């Protein structure tokens, strides 16, 4: 049997095209267009309205499985205006009509790519498609999860299938132990810095190497999340013991370990010496503009955002609190901390992190995508600059076309909030 990457193994197990079961030569190969059975379909308050419209156009009455279609209102929620409220209402009506088991609205809703794994809906070996580019986050648990558009998701909701091109796989080998203040964000920014923003287009990233056993699940979610920022279709980690334990605590379903075969073929291998990585930032206006924060000239900031599907998990908030404890946010900076889910919010309250944020002069909100895409809760004026733990620093992403976003992990974002300019954590914490 030929050795396969994790992406190939999962897609082969879900391939619906007719092929001779015994003919090894008929296996799937990178570049093949195949039809794939999906285990979970996801959409949000921006993308679901189009998906629902197309679903109705398809002429199907019912979704293929009311337990497998997940709608999460997270982008413009709690709704910022009448138009966004109308969009969320479309999800609500559809969920009711279709008797969807998983519709999450204000109070239960978190950012979809935080909520999904937290609820135990992500299992290793699954195929997950979502009408949101950061659906790849779920790859951290060994699922093949990928972002698509609304029409793809409509078809998946109706038929339980989508068309896919089998991706080539780029292996990302991470070796060495991270220094203090280095998190998943720094590792993925280092990876994107090497690959470039389209270095992984049409490809799956598979993370491996001796460093990954030291990585928390939260760090892995951050890394898989930004696979798309290198153009990647998916960002996969092997489902190791830590992943199985995480999933096992959250679902009654049987979970299996999934990993690539030894000797699988990769389109390319990227090697990252984790021990050499310093706290990083990505300067405007592309995520590939990666620099060590120490090497960047003093750069004043107006706003610091700590949250999002990239860095809105408990570990991220703990890191931010470690830096903000006993400190004050710089008088010229607004610091906005946004938990990724109600559970993260609850844990942050229980651990006293919220008090730390409020004492430091930061704002703490309910879960939402909010400012990441310039939606609400922290939109930038012209001439302003934010340091943000989000995933995109495209021109105008967070507001005015004349504003700037610098991407960083929570340690650098919190340190910068205190310093009033881009700062290394050691500049504000002993």
């Amino acid at each position: 049997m030929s050795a396969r990457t994790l992406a190939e193994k999962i897609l082969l197990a879900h391939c619906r095209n007719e092929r001779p079961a015994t003919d090894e030569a008929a296996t799937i190969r990178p570049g093949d267009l195949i039809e794939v059975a999906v285990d979970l379909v996801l959409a949000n308050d921006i993308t679901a309205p189009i998906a629902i419209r197309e679903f109705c156009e398809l002429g199907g009455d019912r979704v293929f499985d009311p337990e497998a279609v997940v709608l999460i209102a997270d982008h413009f929620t709690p709704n910022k205006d009448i138009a966004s409220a109308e969009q969320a209402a479309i999800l609500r009506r559809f969920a009711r009509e279709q008797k969807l088991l998983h519709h999450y609205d204000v109070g239960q809703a978190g950012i979809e790519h935080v909520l999904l794994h937290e609820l135990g809906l992500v299992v290793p070996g699954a195929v997950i498609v979502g009408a949101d580019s950061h659906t790849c986050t779920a790859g951290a648990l060994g699922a093949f999860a990928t972002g698509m558009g609304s029409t793809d998701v409509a078809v998946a909701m109706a038929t339980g299938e989508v068309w896919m091109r089998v991706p080539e796989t780029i292996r990302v080998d991470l070796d060495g132990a991270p220094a203090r203040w280095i998190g998943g964000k720094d590792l993925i920014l280092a990876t994107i810095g090497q690959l470039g923003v389209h270095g992984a287009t049409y490809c799956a990233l598979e993370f491996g190497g001796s460093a990954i056993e030291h990585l928390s699940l939260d760090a892995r979610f951050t890394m898989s999340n930004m696979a798309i920022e290198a153009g990647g279709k998916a960002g996969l980690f092997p489902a190791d013991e830590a992943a199985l334990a995480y999933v096992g605590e959250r679902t009654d379903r049987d979970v299996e370990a999934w990993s690539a075969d030894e000797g699988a073929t990769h389109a390319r291998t990227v090697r990252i010496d984790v021990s050499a990585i310093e706290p990083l930032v990505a300067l405007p206006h592309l995520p590939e503009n990666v620099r060590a924060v120490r090497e960047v000239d003093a750069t004043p900031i107006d706003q610091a955002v700590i949250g999002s599907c990239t860095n809105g998990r408990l570990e991220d908030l703990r890191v931010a609190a470690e830096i903000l404890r006993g400190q004050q946010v710089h008088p010229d900076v607004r610091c906005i901390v946004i938990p990724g889910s109600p559970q993260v919010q609850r844990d942050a309250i229980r651990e006293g992190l919220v008090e730390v944020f409020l004492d430091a002069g930061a704002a703490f909100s309910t879960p939402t995508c909010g400012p990441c895409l310039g939606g609400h809760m922290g939109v930038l004026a012209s001439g302003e600059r934010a340091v943000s733990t989000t995933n995109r620093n495209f021109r105008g992403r967070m507001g005015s076309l004349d504003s700037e976003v610098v991407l960083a992990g929570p340690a650098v974002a919190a340190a910068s909030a205190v310093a009033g300019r881009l700062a290394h954590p050691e500049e504000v914490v002993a």
Partner: protein
Amino acid sequence: MNGRIWVYGDHVDTDAIIPARYLLTSEPTELARHCMEGLDASFADAVRPGDMIVAGENFGCGSSREHAPIAIRAAGVACVVARSFARIFYRNAINIGLPIIACPDAVETATAGQEWEVDLGSGRIRNRTLGMEFPFEPFPPFMSALLDAGGLTAFTRSRIASGELPRRRLGE
């Protein structure tokens, strides 16, 4: 198809094609009114039906918002030619029946306002202003079928109507 071209650079992201603040509707004509606003505020008013967009590498990167190709199509753009496309945008465009073509050689010759002719059937782009012609790789049969059907929704609707889909699920 024949049209005047609009030329943009590398990494035109979907926030530039349609900024998130306009994602409060999925109405194509409304989205068209803000098409390319994050990059070129003059585009939406000046674009004419049949015009084409020509761009560099990685066109359509970033967010999966289908509003981006919807806005481009509703603005009257006949097709997009680029050096390369981001994956999700590529799917979305094909799925909604907006032809998009990767043809770096043709892009090399582009300057704003040229007249181009694109023949999807024969796989040729003609830069009429310069009198140059470029072949491009034809779509694989599956994607041609999607485009011929008018997009993924129409394609799938006929498969559902014929009883081909939905198939029984794995394990059933």
